[in-house]
C-alpha cells in the first residue's frame, strides 16, 4: 500500500505508542473496567496490553483522569481530589445500615467467610436482608463452600466492590497488613463467648485462603 521504506511490516504488531493509544481508546469508551484478556482480544495480534497499560498509567499520573487497576481489570476514573467538581454526577446511594457496613468489612477482611463466622465476630445474628442487600449491590458473592461439616457457604467480595472502593485488590484493604500482624484476622479455636452466632459450621478452619502467597 505504501512505499514508505520506514513503514512497519504488514503484520507486525503496532508500535508501543500506538498500542497505548488503542488501550487508551478502549478504556475510555467503557464504563466498566476492562480486563487484560479483553484488551488482548480487542487489540491487534501481537500487542502487549500490559506494557501499553504501564505506559498509559504513567502518562495519566497526576492528571484529572487516572488509570485505575481493579482486580484483573483496568479503568479510567476521575482523580479523587476533584470529586467536589462532580457534584451533579453523584449518584444517590442507599444508606447502608451499620450492620451492613460491618458485615461488608468483615467479609472483605476475612474472606472467604461463612455466615457463622461473621456472626461470631459481630456477636449478633446477621440480620435478615443484610446479606441480600450486599449481594444485590454486587459487592459480595458466594465463594467456595467450606470443607467442614455442613459444608457452609462462604462469601467473598467482588470486582465491583474493589472498583467502588478504589482498591486494586483485596490485599490493598486499608490496614489489612497491620490487622494480620496483630493476629486479628486469624481464626481462633471456637467461640468461647455464648450467644454469638449459632456456631453451626466448625469455625476452626477459619483461615482465609485468598491471601495465601
Amino acid at each position, binding site marked *: 500500500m505504501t512505499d514508505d521504506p520506514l513503514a512497519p511490516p504488514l503484520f507486525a504488531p503496532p508500535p508501543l505508542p500506538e498500542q497505548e493509544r488503542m488501550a487508551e481508546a478502549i478504556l*475510555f*469508551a*467503557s*464504563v*466498566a473496567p476492562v480486563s487484560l484478556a479483553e484488551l488482548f482480544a480487542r487489540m491487534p495480534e501481537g500487542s502487549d496490553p500490559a506494557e501499553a497499560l504501564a505506559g498509559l498509567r504513567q502518562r495519566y499520573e497526576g492528571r484529572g483522569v487516572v488509570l*485505575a487497576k481493579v482486580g484483573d481489570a483496568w*479503568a*479510567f*476514573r*476521575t*482523580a*479523587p481530589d476533584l*470529586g467536589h467538581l*462532580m457534584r451533579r*454526577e*453523584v*449518584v444517590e*446511594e442507599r444508606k*447502608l445500615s*451499620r*450492620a451492613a*457496613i*460491618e458485615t*461488608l*468489612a*468483615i467479609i*472483605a*477482611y476475612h474472606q472467604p467467610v461463612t455466615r457463622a463466622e461473621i456472626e*461470631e*465476630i*459481630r*456477636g*449478633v445474628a446477621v440480620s435478615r436482608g443484610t446479606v*441480600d442487600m450486599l*449481594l*444485590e449491590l454486587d459487592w459480595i*458473592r*458466594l465463594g467456595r463452600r467450606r470443607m467442614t461439616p455442613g459444608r457452609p457457604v462462604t462469601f467473598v467480595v467482588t470486582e465491583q466492590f474493589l*472498583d*467502588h*472502593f*478504589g*482498591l486494586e485488590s483485596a490485599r490493598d*484493604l*486499608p*490496614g*489489612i497488613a497491620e*490487622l494480620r500482624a*496483630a493476629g*486479628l484476622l486469624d481464626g*481462633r479455636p471456637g*467461640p*468461647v*463467648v*455464648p*450467644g*454469638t452466632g449459632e456456631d453451626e459450621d466448625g469455625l476452626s478452619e477459619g483461615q482465609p485462603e485468598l491471601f495465601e502467597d
Partner: protein
Amino acid sequence: MADEWQEGPAIDTADRLSAEALIVDVDGFEGPLDLLLTLARTQKVDLRRVSVLHLAEQYLGFVDRVRGLRIELAADYLVMAAWLVYLKSRLLLPPDPTEEGPSAEDLAARLAFQLERLAAMRVAAARLMARDRLGRDRFARGLPEDMAVRRSVSFTATLLDLMRAYARIRTRDEFRPFSMNRDDVFTMEQALDRLRTLVGGTVGWTDLAAFLPEGWTSPARRRSATASHFAAVLELARNGQIDLRQAVTFGPLSLRRRPT
C-alpha cells in the same frame, strides 16, 4: 489526658456516669458483644489491657440496673450475663489444677480478643467507607462511546433470581393440590361466554341447571361448572341482562332474559 492510661479496676465517678448513661440507650446496642465493647471503652485503657474482671462487673451491674428499671432484656444479654458470672467466679478462685479445658485466664483473653477484633473491624469498616468511592469521589466515564453495534440478545439472570426461583417452587409445594389438571375446571369467563349466547334463546324462567354444559357430570366437573355458572349469572344479573329468582333458600335458581 494522663488518666487515659490509668490501669486497674477502680470504678471512678466518670465510669459510673457513663455506664448509667448507657441505660437510656439499651436498645442502641447490637448485642452483648457491642455492649461489652462500649463498657470496655469506659475503662479508658487499650483494649488489650482491659480488665476482664472489671468488665464482667460492669456488665453485670448494667444488667442489674436495667432490670431494676423493669426493662426487658433480650435473651442473649442474659446468656452473656450468666457466662460472665461463671467467668468472674473462676477468675476469683485459685486455679484448680485438676480441671480440664481452658483456664479462666484463657477464657478472659479470648473475650478480650473478641472485643479487640470487633473494635478493629469497626475501624476497618469506617476506613473502608471513608475511601474515595466510585460515584461519590471518583467517577466513571459519563458518556461511554457509541460503538458500531451489532445487537444480539443475551439472557441474564442473577444468582439471586435463581435461588428465589427455586425457593418459590419449593414453597409452592405445600399448595400442590391447587395445580390441578385444568381439564376439570370450568372458568367463569367460559361460563359467561356460554350464558351470553344461551340466554338469548330462552323464553321465560329456566332452571340454571339446564344451562350446565354437557359432559360435565363427574362430581368434580359438575361442581366446577355449577360454581362458574352461578358466578356468571350473578354477573349477568348485575349488568341487568337477566333476572334471577329463587323461591326458597337452597332451592333451584331460575333465570330469564330481562325483557327489553
